[in-house]
């Protein structure tokens, strides 16, 4: 039997007092209320650590970079201790066959009882040869490793949606994890990278309660991806008032007005940046004066400029957005109507002239 989380913590010199403080803090940050704190403590005291295999596919490792910078030191310690992080090729000391053997060992020993955290995604073109892991295509390793897993966490925009390597024309056919693996619970934690505390929060929840957090329609944990950046943005008051920065160096930008007109994707992006912020709550993109680029949304690379509010719609060409298409359509149809009306009037006038000519002839005849 592996150690419990509590035993690991005590061994690392963390006092019981700090441990209980952590439990309350975690309960609060997960929005669970004070009654959950003893339950978290109990779980951490009695449960064996869940082994985690952390795989790296086609990616830039920014998720790992974010994760290991989780701001709350205790959170970091606890999570890194809680996770029996048995395999993570970028963090582990072992390498080569020695390292690869661990995957096999975990698979056998903890069959159906370990978590696979995937950073990056498998490219499928050329039989997956664009990403080789231990001499084999990553997609094969991923499928094998996930086969006996309890649950899978898709870290970041790569694993959740595909991110930049899947941007058009996606030459390697980089494919999100949930489109390759089926029949297992998959938690999408998008973002490029996701916020560190969001990552540790998801892991803490899963290890504490032995179940995956409640997910939304896109498989994202509701507690962190339930609201848009815009809904909790501290500049929202300026949006509702109608006060916008209209240029990067204008008075509005200096006064911290809403960046909506500068193409901020806050209103279309689901993430916790505006409430949790980054780097231990120091700042976040909008606070630093730049709009959100929507990095936790599906296909954000292919959805037009980061600096337009009404963005271009791909099938209509790079520079065509709803407004330019709409104005062109309305203008063309308007011109056609004017022409049609003119022809109608002309035809009618000619017809009337003909009619009056014939009636006058009739009258003459009489």
């Amino acid at each position: 039997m592996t150690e419990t989380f509590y035993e690991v913590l005590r061994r690392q010199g963390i006092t019981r007092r700090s441990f209980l403080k952590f439990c309350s803090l975690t309960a609060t940050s997960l929005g669970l209320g004070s009654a959950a704190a003893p339950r978290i403590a109990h779980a951490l005291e009695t449960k064996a650590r869940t082994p985690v295999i952390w795989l790296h596919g086609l990616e830039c490792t920014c998720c790992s970079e974010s994760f290991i910078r989780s701001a709350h030191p205790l959170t970091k310690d606890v999570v890194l201790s809680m996770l029996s992080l048995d395999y993570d090729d970028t963090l582990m000391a072992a390498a080569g066959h020695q390292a690869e053997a661990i995957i096999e060992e975990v698979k056998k020993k903890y069959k159906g009882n370990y978590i696979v955290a995937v950073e990056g995604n498998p490219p499928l073109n050329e039989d997956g040869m664009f990403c080789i892991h231990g001499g084999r295509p990553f997609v094969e390793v991923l499928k094998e490793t996930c086969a006996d897993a309890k649950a899978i966490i898709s870290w970041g925009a790569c694993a959740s949606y595909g991110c930049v390597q899947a941007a058009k024309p996606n030459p390697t056919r980089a494919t999100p994890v949930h489109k390759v693996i089926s029949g297992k619970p998959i938690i999408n934690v998008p973002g490029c990278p996701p916020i560190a505390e969001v990552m540790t929060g998801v892991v803490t929840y899963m290890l504490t309660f032995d179940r995956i957090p409640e997910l939304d329609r896109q498989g994202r944990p509701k507690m962190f991806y339930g609201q848009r950046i815009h809904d909790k943005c501290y500049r929202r008051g300026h949006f509702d008032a109608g006060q916008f920065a209209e240029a990067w160096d204008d008075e509005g930008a200096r006064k911290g007005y809403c960046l909506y007109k500068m193409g901020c994707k806050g209103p279309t992006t689901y993430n916790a940046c505006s409430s949790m912020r980054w780097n231990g709550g120091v700042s976040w993109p909008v606070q630093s004066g730049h709009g959100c680029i929507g990095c936790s949304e599906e296909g954000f690379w292919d959805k037009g400029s980061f600096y337009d509010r009404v963005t271009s719609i791909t099938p209509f060409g790079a520079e065509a957005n709803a407004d330019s298409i709409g104005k062109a359509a309305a203008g063309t149809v308007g011109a056609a109507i004017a022409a049609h009306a003119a022809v109608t009037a002309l035809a009618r006038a000619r017809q009337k002239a003909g009619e009056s000519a014939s009636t006058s002839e009739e009258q003459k005849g009489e």
Partner: protein
Amino acid sequence: MLSQQDMLEAERHGKQVRSIYVYEAPVRLWHWINALCMVVLAVTGYFIGQPLPTVPGEAAENFLMGYIRFAHFAAAYIFAIGLLGRIYWAIVGNHHAKQIFKLPITNPQWWSEVFFELRWYMFLEKTPKKYVGHNPMAQLMMFFFFTVLAVGMVFTGFALYSEGAGLGTWSDSLFGWVIPMLGGSLQVHNLHRLGMWIMMTFVLVHVYAAIREDIMSRQSLISTMISGWRMFKD
């Protein structure tokens, strides 16, 4: 004297004017409420995507975007409830009330008249046909550019509304699935805006055709949507 003369003249001509009751009161009322909603929705919607210039003063003293969005949402509710009411009336009302919801696509006669109307609008026919309700061409246009599009606008619109209303609200439960289906929030915003432009382009055609046919087709169109009676002028 003059009025007597007019009356005599009107009587002499009036013998030829026949009229039929086409649009029942709920349909007429809905038409104009709906028209007003569309104007409000298009104007406020345009300014939600491309906001007005920045308002001076303190944020706490202004609520311009808030009011514009409120008007948009209020008009959207009226538009959607009106559409539901109109669907109800299509079921219980007269057969003209069903026209914009049901195309007789299996009827070859109907199709030939669609093409007849197309030729009429292309100046290839000298005399127009008379219709009590919509002409087949108009019916086809109404079905796609109003009925189908309006349903699409309600679905995308309430899906976007659910984003602000929050998870678990009625709009999220009913329409939230639209957003991942269409490829994300930004895409739905764009499609909703494109839908607005298509709808407004159709409004141009609709108004033009109504005025033109009112003059050319020897039957009333515009007043029919006010009084309900279609007059045939010869």
